[in-house]
């Protein structure tokens, strides 16, 4: 478990206290709002989202740059690839 490190991103998406499928739906909507090469930082509390966001990245071709968690908060940095 690594501590939360402040990370620079182009967009912040708060999906805390949301359950599946909302963190994925909101992330796929948000990624359309940034340009290719830009990043989104999203925070979730659904434990399933650790696996869901990794699967979403593999399926959509976007890149999951980092995953962190502290306590019950999961934090993901995602880059739009296409």
């Amino acid at each position, binding site marked *: 478990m690594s501590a939360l490190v402040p990370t620079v991103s182009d967009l912040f998406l708060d999906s805390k206290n949301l*359950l599946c*499928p909302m963190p994925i739906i909101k992330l*796929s909507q948000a990624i359309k709002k940034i340009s290719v090469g830009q990043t989104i930082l999203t925070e979730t509390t659904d434990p399933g989202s650790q696996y869901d966001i990794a*699967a*979403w990245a593999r399926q959509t071709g976007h890149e999951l740059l980092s995953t962190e968690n502290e306590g019950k908060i999961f934090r993901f940095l995602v880059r739009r690839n296409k």
Partner: protein
Amino acid sequence: MDAALQQQVEELVAKRLAEIEIEKAIQDAQRVKRLALVASKGSLDMAYPPLILASTAVSLGWEVGVFFTFYGLDIVNKEKLPFLKVAPIGNPAMPAPIAAIPSLQVPNFLGMLPGMTPIATAMMKSWFDRANIPPLQDLIDVTREGGGHLYACTTTMGVMGVNEENLLEGVECRGAAAFLEFAAGADVALFI
């Protein structure tokens, strides 16, 4: 043919086969995946699984088609969608009404009493609400906006007396053959 030449041919063939394998893997990874669902149930609890899967699949960039048949047709019926219910009778999985006292189970047969279905429905809606689960209409909208197809089974429409104007906007009326043709190309096909 001498042994050296034979070996050279075999090496070239093996190399080409390996290349073809890699090309196939790349093509497979780039191909858009497809989800085909049959939604056959029209109770509040059973309307969620197909719509959660469909809205997630469009978010993954997949092609999606959901075939709403029999009671499942109520999910895309605009007059019925807001009033889908869950009945406690015959459902032993229904949790206790007071979460703090899980042992206080209502005897199942009491589910037949008038008012029990609306109570169970209101209870379940409050759980969804507390967990920030969006209403069914929102999941339908996400699926539609993501290019997902919502197919209404025309046989069910005929049997239940449902017309096209009773259905939500964008719902496509199809028979089994048209859905099967879509499902034949699916990577994931589920009956719910």
